[in-house]
């Protein structure tokens, strides 16, 4: 009997049978395929067709000839960007802005979560969280608007500065301040929200562990270091990989709004440059090439960071 079943199973696995079975399944459950169709079709149109459109980075795209008809130019646009005089500053601006954001933006949510975790009164803790999360819901336009009004020559910060030194600082027109303002305002807005994931992980720590450690004479800092931190280590690793890997994927929205003609030497980053070259100047091919260059670096970085963290973290990476 056992043997018979096995042979039957083997036969069932034959290709023709599988095809027929799948075909029957699709016919019988066609409703499921109607359900997934909108997402599938939209993905093909708005994600895969543009991926195909990337080939204009290797062509001299002109509207009259279309994507297929335009002439191939190979890597011309890539070499043009790499040898352009503004390549180095723009590349470094992108890298530095992200790197500063990561260096400060990564540890602060962790520290916030560890501190919140020490709050004994649940009600007070909830209210503090409520306040710390709030800036996350303010739009980027309003955040940058607030930066402009606060730092304007007649704004509150400069009123204080004028009182002490006598002359205002034109923050938004000085390339020197751009990165600091960008990173600090980013932390003001995002650090609280970013701490949620750590707060949740810390809630899983068994209080008995802390009690046992206290009996053994461990003080609070030792307990945080040896119990709380190891608990959130896996979460830290994932967050770090995602943000370090995405270092060249820095968003367009905030930097673009914060740009003034005067602070461009530090505020021009690859995404804003892609926008200006492509949509403002209409140089589609060149812009697509710069965008593609950025994506390729990004993917390499993600793989690299994941590899390093995996090594350091005893085999626990993102994938």
């Amino acid at each position: 009997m056992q043997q018979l079943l096995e042979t039957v199973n083997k036969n069932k696995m034959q290709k023709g049978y599988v095809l027929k079975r799948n075909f029957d399944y699709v016919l019988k459950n066609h409703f499921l395929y109607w359900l997934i169709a909108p997402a599938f079709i939209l993905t093909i149109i708005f994600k895969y067709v543009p991926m195909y459109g990337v080939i204009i980075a290797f062509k001299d795209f002109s509207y009259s000839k279309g994507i297929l008809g335009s002439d191939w130019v190979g890597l011309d646009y890539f070499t043009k960007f790499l040898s352009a005089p503004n390549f180095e500053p723009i590349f470094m601006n992108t890298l530095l802005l992200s790197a500063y954001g990561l260096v400060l933006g990564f540890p602060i949510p962790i520290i916030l979560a560890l501190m919140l975790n020490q709050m004994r009164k649940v009600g007070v803790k909830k209210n503090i969280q409520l306040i710390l999360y709030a800036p996350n819901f303010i739009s980027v336009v309003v955040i940058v608007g607030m930066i402009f009004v606060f730092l304007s020559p007649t704004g509150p910060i400069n009123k204080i500065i004028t009182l002490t030194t006598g002359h205002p600082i034109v923050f938004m027109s000085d390339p020197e301040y751009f990165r600091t303002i960008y990173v600090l305002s980013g932390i003001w807005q995002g650090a609280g929200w970013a701490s949620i994931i750590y707060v949740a992980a810390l809630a899983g720590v068994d209080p008995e562990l802390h009690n046992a450690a206290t009996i053994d004479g461990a003080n609070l800092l030792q307990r945080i270091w040896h119990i709380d931190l190891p608990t959130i280590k896996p979460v830290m690793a994932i967050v770090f990989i995602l943000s370090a890997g995405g270092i060249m994927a820095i968003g367009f929205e905030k930097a673009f709004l914060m740009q003034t003609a005067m602070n461009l030497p530090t505020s021009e980053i690859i995404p804003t440059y892609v926008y200006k070259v492509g949509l403002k100047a209409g140089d589609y091919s060149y812009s697509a090439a710069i965008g593609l260059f950025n994506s390729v670096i990004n993917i390499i970085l993600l793989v690299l960071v994941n590899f390093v963290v995996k090594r350091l973290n005893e085999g626990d990476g993102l994938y």
Partner: protein
Amino acid sequence: MNLKPSRLDRVVLTINYTLLALAVLVVLVPLIYVVVASFMEPTTLLNKGISFNLSDYSVEGYKLILANEAMLRGFVNGLFYSAAFAVVTVAVSIFAGYPLSIDNFVGKKFFMTIFIITMFFGGGLIPTFLVIKELGMLNTVWAIIVPGAVSVWNIILARTFFKGIPRELNEAAKVDGASELLIFLRIVLPLSKPIIFVLALYAFVGQWNSYFDAMIYLENTKLYPLQLVLRSILIQNQVDPGMITDRLVMAEMKRLSEIIKYASIVISSLPLLVMYPFFQKYFEKGVMVGSLK
């Protein structure tokens, strides 16, 4: 068992509370400042900043904002785009998430691969722009609502949620002869209210707060959502004082520009900031479900 903290621990705890209080102040002070400043009399605000003298308060800023047609139209547009976007993106994500949650769904791997690849590779700004232009969607509402409607992240969230619904329910219904259509409509959808709500909330707020798509795809200012109107008030005005040549008008503009900014920040951000505590639970849920791999 509750152990009494040692002296060192109490010192650490005190520092801890102090730092937290400081963090709360750092977040709150700018917000409160904006609200107070928005109620100042414009000239006082320009010359002295905020004051605590009651006679220096006025609602002139709000009067100007509420009389501003562009602002009101932006508000209505933004509301419409956000609501429409939320409906479309939630529907698409829920519909796609359900088949993907079924273990023996034929083609599951194929569809998942197609979706996941888009998380790592994309065409980029220009090729996407060209597709939307080619489809004749430039300068229409569709460019705002449709292209971003598929979010792989949302599909995965929906799928994770559906996987949590006990399969026995579906199996039982199947034995009773119910089709997948009936199971989806009668069993799965009614149980999915929480995930629908969380996804809709995120979609709505995300759309409400964004300006980028509207900036590149819309030219007609009548179609502008609130964020783009705010951009011209809050930011462009700052960078470029405009073309006003008349001295008097310019002086008046200078006098009023700050109060307009403060008042428009409050008017545009307050609704969300007031509403969010009621929904905080759901927002946090979104982060938590999303963190499941």
